[in-house]
């Protein structure tokens, strides 16, 4: 056999093929495997394309939950610290 086709071997190929097929010929999956699969598939939803995170946040934004005083105080302090001129001009204007 030349080195070019050393992966091919007529008689040996035949023997191995027959041997392997004979060994596995009697093997079949258990009968309950089908119903088990369908039950598992019914429980598992097919994967869907992932939506962007924005729509998921939208319902939460619509909740009628006003921020508490402590949060509002923090926000006010932050605004005064970062944009004092804007807040002052707003107060003068109104």
């Amino acid at each position, binding site marked *: 056999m030349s080195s070019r086709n050393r*992966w091919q071997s007529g*008689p040996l190929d035949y023997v191995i093929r027959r041997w*392997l*097929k004979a060994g596995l010929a009697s093997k079949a*999956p258990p009968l309950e495997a089908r119903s088990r699969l369908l039950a598992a*598939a019914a429980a598992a939803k097919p994967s869907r394309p992932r939506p962007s995170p924005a729509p998921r946040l939208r319902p939460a934004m619509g909740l009628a939950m006003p921020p508490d005083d402590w949060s509002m105080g923090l926000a006010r302090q932050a605004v005064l610290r970062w944009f004092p001129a804007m807040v002052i001009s707003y107060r003068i204007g109104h």
Partner: protein
Amino acid sequence: MSPNVAQQVRDRHLVIQLQQGDLEALGALYDRHRQLVYRTALGITADEEAAADLLQDVFLRLYRYARRIDPDRPFEPLLYRVTTNLAYTWIRRRSVGVRILREMGEWLIRDRRPTLHQMAEAGEAWDQVRRAISSLPLAQRVVLVLHYLNDLSVSEIAEILEVPEGTVKSRLHYGRRALKATLGLGKDVLPEAFYELT
């Protein structure tokens, strides 16, 4: 229309139904391809329980990710790819300790099995296959199973495993050589088989 083409058309139709979440299509695909998947998984893992689990995992995966399947491409190569990938993962995850414990358990209960001495020829053949296959390195095992059990060509195996054809040929060569040594296939066996073939 040739039977092969007719089968591909039927598979395509079922895959499209599967993409719509149709469980009956999943059942139909399972009925058509269960033997292929089960025997391939069994040939690679040499473990009947694992093959049954992998069979379920393969079809569940197809169901879950049905939208990613291109219905216009042949279905069987995809099945082989998913089966071999999951079998690879199963073998890698399987710890040596578990295997030793299982083999020891099998050895301990071997003499207590009432039907062992009446084991059918097919059962003995499987036992021989199981032992021989288990002794091969995983990469060679996969190639041998795809080539000899499923009659896939070198180029088809290369495409499924996403490796060069030369790699498949090399694994086939060394796997066959190892198998020949394991099974004790000497020159006295081969000529007889050759004459039987011709």
